[in-house]
């Protein structure tokens, strides 16, 4: 048992830490957030140059061959800086799915382009009626000439507004809730039959509602075989979200601690009041739990499906619960300043709370955990 980072992981941590410290001050982030694209292309190129876009991919593609712990290190750093760029959408969700399912030539062209920063992707999996259920897929795919033709709608596709290509989950068989019959496709975002309504999310990111009307699509892997790879990519995405939340929660705790040491009322710093001290302690306790569960999930991705699913669900549920507490308390302890858009803390609070709405919330993952209650922890 060893919680220390390896030399390579530590280098990754330092790289991301330096990037966020130097290249991501709040005003720079605000400029990128309010730009038309909603993030910085220049920053994306820096990610590519630093090798960050290759973390989960094989060295053949210019990657780092990393797994859960490596992506955790990167995402925690991103969480500290509230990074806006579509890393989760492109690298983690779409990229690893292509990597798992794609043919050699698909991987050769797409993964290399991701690693080089030449293409950005988004995963279009969830649907308007499906909430957080990734098996709720009504979108259909039918054979058409050499490829396929897609029809259906996808909901709140993270960074779907600006993606060059979309990875779409659609049915080649089975009925709306079945686990079988799910296939993954690559679709050119500007292709005929693809319509996108992009928008800003409350935490400053971008997403889109996307409709496919006889849109041309290229199959990844074999028909009907996407579910296992999809669930692996989603599990990895959850680890990345947990780590991002942990990084953001850490900053929210630090900023709140600084604030209550500084802010004077009744002639003393408000941090002298026990009522606030205990709440601050509770925030830190939630942060420690969040960090622990993120580590647990990140180190469990290679285990058998039931134990992996149990730990990942428990981690995401706990992040939802702890994140809400940290975000709400951070705003409360900041008083009126916590309500202000100009206060960086408010942006951290928004991101932390919205992470609960991505890839399954507290309620969804508690239900998952309840179905996995009999899975023995010691079997791991």
């Amino acid at each position, binding site marked *: 048992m060893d919680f220390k980072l390896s030399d390579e992981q530590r280098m990754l941590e330092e790289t991301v830490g330096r990037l966020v410290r130097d290249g991501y001050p709040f005003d720079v982030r605000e400029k990128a957030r309010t730009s038309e694209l909603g993030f910085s292309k220049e920053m994306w190129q820096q990610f590519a140059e630093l090798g960050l876009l290759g973390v989960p991919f094989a060295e053949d593609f210019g990657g780092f061959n990393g797994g859960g712990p490596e992506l955790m290190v990167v995402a925690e750093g991103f969480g500290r800086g509230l990074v806006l760029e579509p890393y989760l959408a492109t690298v983690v969700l779409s990229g690893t799915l292509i990597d798992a399912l794609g043919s050699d030539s698909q991987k050769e062209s797409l993964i290399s382009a991701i690693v080089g920063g030449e293409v950005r992707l988004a995963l279009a999996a969830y649907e308007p009626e499906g909430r957080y259920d990734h098996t709720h897929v009504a979108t259909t795919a039918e054979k058409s000439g050499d490829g396929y033709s897609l029809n259906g709608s996808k909901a709140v596709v993270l960074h779907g507004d600006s993606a060059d290509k979309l990875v779409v989950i659609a049915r080649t068989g089975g009925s709306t809730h079945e686990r079988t019959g799910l296939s993954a496709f690559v679709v050119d975002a500007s292709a005929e039959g693809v319509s996108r309504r992009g928008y800003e999310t409350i935490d400053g990111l971008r997403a889109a509602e996307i409709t496919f009307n006889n849109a041309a699509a290229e199959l990844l892997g074999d028909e009907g075989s996407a579910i296992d790879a999809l669930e692996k990519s989603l599990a990895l995405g959850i680890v990345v979200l947990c780590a991002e939340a942990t990084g953001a929660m850490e900053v929210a705790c630090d900023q709140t601690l600084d604030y209550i040491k500084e802010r004077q009322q009744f002639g003393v710093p408000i941090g002298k009041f026990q009522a606030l001290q205990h709440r*601050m302690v509770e925030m*830190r306790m939630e942060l420690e*739990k969040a960090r622990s569960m993120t580590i647990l999930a990140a180190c469990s991705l290679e285990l058998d499906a039931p134990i992996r699913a149990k730990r990942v669900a428990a981690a995401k549920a706990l992040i939802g619960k702890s994140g809400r507490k940290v975000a709400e308390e951070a705003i409360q302890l900041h008083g009126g300043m916590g309500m202000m858009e100009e206060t960086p803390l408010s942006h951290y609070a928004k991101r932390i709370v919205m992470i609960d709405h991505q890839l399954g919330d507290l309620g969804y993952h*508690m239900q998952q955990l309840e179905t996995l209650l009999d899975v023995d922890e010691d079997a791991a």
Partner: protein
Amino acid sequence: MDINYTPEELAFRDEVRAFLDEKLPKDIASKVKNSQHLGKQDTVRWQKILNEKGWMALHWPKEHGGTGWSPIQKHIFEEECAEYGAPTVLPFGVNMVAPVIIKFGTEEQKQKYLPPILNSDVWWCQGYSEPGAGSDLAGLKTKAVREGDHYIVNGQKTWTTLGQHADWIFCLVRTDPNAKKQEGISFLLIDMQTPGITVRPLITLDGEHEVNEVFFDDVKVPVENLVGEENKGWTCAKYLLTFERTGIAGVGQSKAALKHLKEVASKVQQNGKPLIEDPLFRHRLADVEMELMALEMTNLRTVAAAQAGGVPGAESSFLKIMGTELRQEITDLFRRAAGPYAQPFLPESFEADYDGEMVGPDFANTVSAKYFNMRKLSIFGGSNEIQKNIIAKMILGL
């Protein structure tokens, strides 16, 4: 980063398991698992078995008969003991007074007191709290006045756990009434047979006699029973409070209890179905399981940090709060699992040799008493609010 045990750590766990399989008396384990009364004899019998193996003093240096184990080994041992239903080793001798004697005592004191602690021949209790000194421990008033070769002790201690069985008590006493609060305190060892000592039982809300009041009326204590310097007792007290406590999170106990709770909830019926299938109950079980996973990882992170040389200081306050809240939550779920049968109170049936009739399911018998008894967890050892004060001061710098 690797959250799994190394092959050496796994081999050690196998060794512990083999020992527990062979040496832990079945009758004692059964009492622990069924929350029945453990007598002094049960505890002493088990502790002597541990000592025979050389596994009694986890935290002592090897030269004094300690195990010399690493923090991870101690963690594994404590977790396995909980899983097997081994009685908790009573901390007052081996984990409280002994480390103070080892650190601050004279050679004579070490030779006199340590061997009987190792072999559980002498039963120790703790004389810290007083009616007017709980969380504000330094407000204690029991005084010791030097007269020749003796101190004359007068005052009262309270919440003295298992003091009714004790041969010796270690006390914080005031030796300088004029010094500042923390500075006039000394650490004194007192033979419970000394004339002038009276032990009175305190009965807790679950009907148990676990704690006592101890009165001192002109008790003559030889000066050689002073540990460390006169008026430097607060240093000993603080050392004891920050002393390495790998088991403070109670992860093993909570894991064993949760496992038992799941078994029980699978048998009890509600609305024609096992209780474990009831959505609300199952949700609370899942919540406890999730919190327990987080606690276990946080505990392991602290243990690993200790292994790497960082001494767990105020971090153990986090573990104390999280661990005790979780154990209390589990006792609440046991009480709910029992349903209406949480009400009958038959303390005589808590004895292992009870052969009378039970009321309701067997497990339900002790759940409410245990629930109320376990309220103590967030009060003793520095209340959870005091732990938060410690974190606020030591970690957050508030």
